[in-house]
């Protein structure tokens, strides 16, 4: 083996690359049939915070025939050392070069990690393009939320798995083992897995384009490839596998705690939110199951914090029961509970009072839009009265710092709507100062955090035109100009990055060559200030003769969208009607109030059958 010591002594945060953490799975690579590497295209501390990875790492390693290891994107300094010393990118567990694995599974959590995928393949000496890979090369595949538009990476991925991974991963591995034993060709393997529901093999489909660049046809060219690929879900979440151990990193990672996944999906149906659509229908775990998972994980990790994870924890039907029972455990074990995605009301504030033994940090509210009209457009069913009431409760409860999350660049938005963001911030400050001095603390901090909306596939806004960099900038400044209070802090995001994200979110497979070009120009770590360089991307588009505004334009209902061949259960008709309702600022009730017949009932489980 190469001299790891010499390299690690020269890089920052060497613990990113050592492995060997508590609960790392150790197997003899010589005694397994399949060597699998779970690849997260970002640094260790981001990747190790990802719950999906923890689940799949454990589930794959439950198999005696497979050893699942981990790899992350090396930071700039480590990449330099690897290249300089001619060392291929290696796995954490056994330090095996990635090109010696059978399968590399990448998770696609955000579009701005795509350049890192190419970089990781290159550092592993694996041909970047799927068509260039030969017998003996690993199969490179991907899953995760961004795989719902797999097309921008179609040239690089041998296949995709769509939807929740617990079952499909094992099905793919079963087929792989059999194929390997029988000694088939790469093509034969792909033909075999194309038959599994939820598997998409990009090379088995041909795309034709119209003169205006839109898609003319998208059709299978292989007898085993399905015209429609249906996402996979776990119908019975109560009995799904969940790890009883998490790897406990030494390094301070982003989410360094036990995570309990209380449910999947979301009943709310906010029209901008992809997660709220692709994970439908809502499926819950019982408090009993969660409590038992919690106890096992406390025992096996020694973590001092536990967090409830979901898209909207307040919507969990067993929330009170779970919170009360968990509190008994956490108090006796001196464990902190963190409760993200909670609506601010009397119950949640009381609960936070109990669980947060540390001094009171800030409360976060997510109005998402400044004006009531816009909140109706996006179906965020919260009124200004609700928001100000929440703020008042928090101030009375002793909190002095409130963060408000907003988006700008939403469809059907005007400058007047945007200015309302600043006004709402002021009203929150006013709520504080109209409270009698005895009922609040001394000073208040309101943070307005404003991100730029990116239209995503499989949302009612998937047809919307994305705002240009200039429009976003104008809106950002409109908010800024209207903030007068010194108690208000204002944050906004780099709009160039949002536009690039939007291009890849709704892009087609012709973006593959742009990605390849940008990679050749050195694009990597695009979600990091240290990495993002719009000039490289602009150059890449230019050299490929492509105009990125093609991908940010408005689409018509008739147009074939690159992801139309994927069936997520929710119908296109539903998404269209939601978009029409948005135009008229009409809201749609949540799943528990009234079924909106979105189509997710086709999976035969969850909230649709409560």
């Amino acid at each position, binding site marked *: 083996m190469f001299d*790891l*010591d*010499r390299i*690690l*002594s020269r890089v920052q945060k*060497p*613990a990113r690359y*050592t*492995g*060997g*953490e*508590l609960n*790392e799975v150790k197997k003899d690579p010589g005694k397994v049939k399949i060597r699998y590497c779970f690849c997260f295209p970002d640094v260790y501390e981001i990747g190790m915070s990802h719950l999906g990875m923890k689940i799949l790492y454990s589930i794959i390693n439950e198999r005696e025939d497979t050893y699942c290891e981990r790899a992350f994107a090396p930071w700039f300094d480590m990449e330099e050392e690897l290249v300089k010393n001619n060392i291929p990118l290696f796995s954490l567990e056994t330090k095996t070069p990635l090109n010696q694995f059978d399968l590399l599974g990448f998770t696609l959590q955000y579009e701005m990690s795509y350049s890192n995928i190419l970089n990781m393949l290159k550092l592993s000496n694996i041909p970047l393009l799927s068509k260039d890979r030969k017998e003996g090369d690993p199969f490179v595949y991907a899953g995760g939320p961004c795989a719902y538009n797999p097309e921008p990476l179609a040239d690089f991925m041998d296949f995709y798995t769509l939807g929740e991974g617990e079952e499909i991963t094992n099905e793919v591995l079963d087929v792989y083992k059999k194929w390997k034993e029988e000694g088939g060709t790469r093509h034969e393997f792909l033909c075999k897995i194309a038959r599994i529901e939820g598997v998409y093999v990009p090379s088995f489909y041909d795309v034709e384009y119209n003169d205006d660049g839109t898609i003319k046809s998208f059709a299978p060219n292989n007898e085993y490839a399905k015209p429609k690929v249906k996402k996979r879900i776990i119908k019975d979440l109560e009995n799904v596998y969940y790890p009883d151990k998490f790897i*406990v990193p*030494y*390094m*301070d990672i982003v989410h360094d705690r036990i995570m309990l996944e209380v449910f999947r999906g979301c009943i709310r149906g906010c029209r901008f939110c992809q997660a709220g659509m692709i994970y439908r229908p809502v499926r819950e775990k019982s408090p009993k199951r969660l409590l038992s998972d919690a106890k096992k994980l406390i*025992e*096996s*990790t*020694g*973590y*001092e914090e536990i967090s409830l994870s979901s898209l909207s924890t307040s919507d969990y039907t067993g929330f009170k029961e779970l919170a009360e029972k968990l509190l008994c455990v956490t108090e006796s*074990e*001196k464990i902190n509970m963190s409760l993200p995605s909670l609506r601010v009301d009397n119950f949640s504030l009381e609960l936070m009072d109990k669980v947060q*033994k*540390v*001094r009171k940090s800030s409360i976060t509210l997510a109005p998402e839009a400044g004006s009531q009209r816009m909140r109706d457009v996006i179906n965020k069913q919260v009124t200004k009265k609700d928001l100000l009431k929440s703020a008042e409760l928090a101030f009375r409860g002793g909190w002095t710092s409130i963060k408000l999350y907003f988006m700008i660049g939403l469809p059907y938005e005007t400058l007047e709507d945007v200015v309302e963001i600043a006004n709402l911030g002021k009203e929150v400050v006013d709520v504080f100062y109209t409270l009698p001095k005895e009922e609040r603390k001394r000073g208040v901090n309101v943070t307005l955090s404003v991100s730029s909306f990116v239209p995503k596939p499989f949302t009612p806004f998937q047809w919307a035109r994305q705002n240009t960099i200039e429009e976003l900038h104008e809106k950002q400044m409109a908010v800024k100009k209207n903030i007068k209070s010194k108690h208000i802090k204002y944050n906004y995001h780099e709009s160039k990055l949002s536009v690039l994200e939007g291009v890849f979110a709704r892009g087609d497979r012709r973006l593959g060559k742009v990605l390849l070009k940008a990679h050749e120009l050195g694009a990597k770590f695009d979600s990091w200030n240290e990495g993002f360089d719009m000039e490289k991307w602009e150059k890449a588009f230019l050299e490929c003769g492509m105009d990125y505004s093609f991908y940010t334009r408005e689409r018509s209902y008739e147009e074939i969208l690159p992801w139309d061949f994927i069936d997520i259960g929710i119908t296109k008709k539903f998404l269209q009607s939601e978009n029409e309702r948005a135009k008229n600022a009409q809201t749609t009730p949540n799943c528990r109030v009234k079924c909106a017949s979105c189509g997710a009932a086709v999976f035969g489980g969850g909230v649709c059958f409560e």
Partner: protein
Amino acid sequence: MSKYSFRYEKTGLAKYISHLDFVRAINRALRRAHIPVKYSQGFNPHSLLSFGMPLPVGYTSVCEIFEAELERDMDENLIMEKLNSTLPDGIRILEVSKVCPDIKKIRYAKYIIKPEFMPGKDFVKSFLENDTIVIDKKTKSGIKEKDIKKDIKEINLCGTFIEMVLSASNTANLKPDVVAAAFKKYGFDLGFCQYERVMFFDENLNKI
């Protein structure tokens, strides 16, 4: 008072764990092992642990010490067994004792350095005969010169490795990689080195 002293080693890839990360890892291991560590009172209770001189990242050690206050007395061997059964690779408790080697008394430490290139006796001799040994030290306000001569107690050549006894306290702490840099400045490059801390001493050079 149920105060215990833990002597431990940090070897293999565990040497890349920084001191703060290591403290967190020990806290979690104590929780997993159900060793009833006492917690401080107040808003943000923390476990009552104290660590000796932080080990630099990249160094192994066979002589590290931390002290913990427990809620009640426990058998030393049982503590050690429970803790070792839940510690990750590279961290191992070597000894638990109720009699504390007081970490506040540490003044010197012995290190073993395995260099790529061994210096000759003459070089080391003349190195130590300098009246001052000045190195460039990076500080917040730029690079400053520092004389490290008084912090070098001993340097011995032992076949393929070098032994150094150097100051190790809050007021004066000299790391062997700094000495290696000084070697280079004074004419001999050790190349790539591996560092291990092997022993602590008090002011009279008695082993702690």
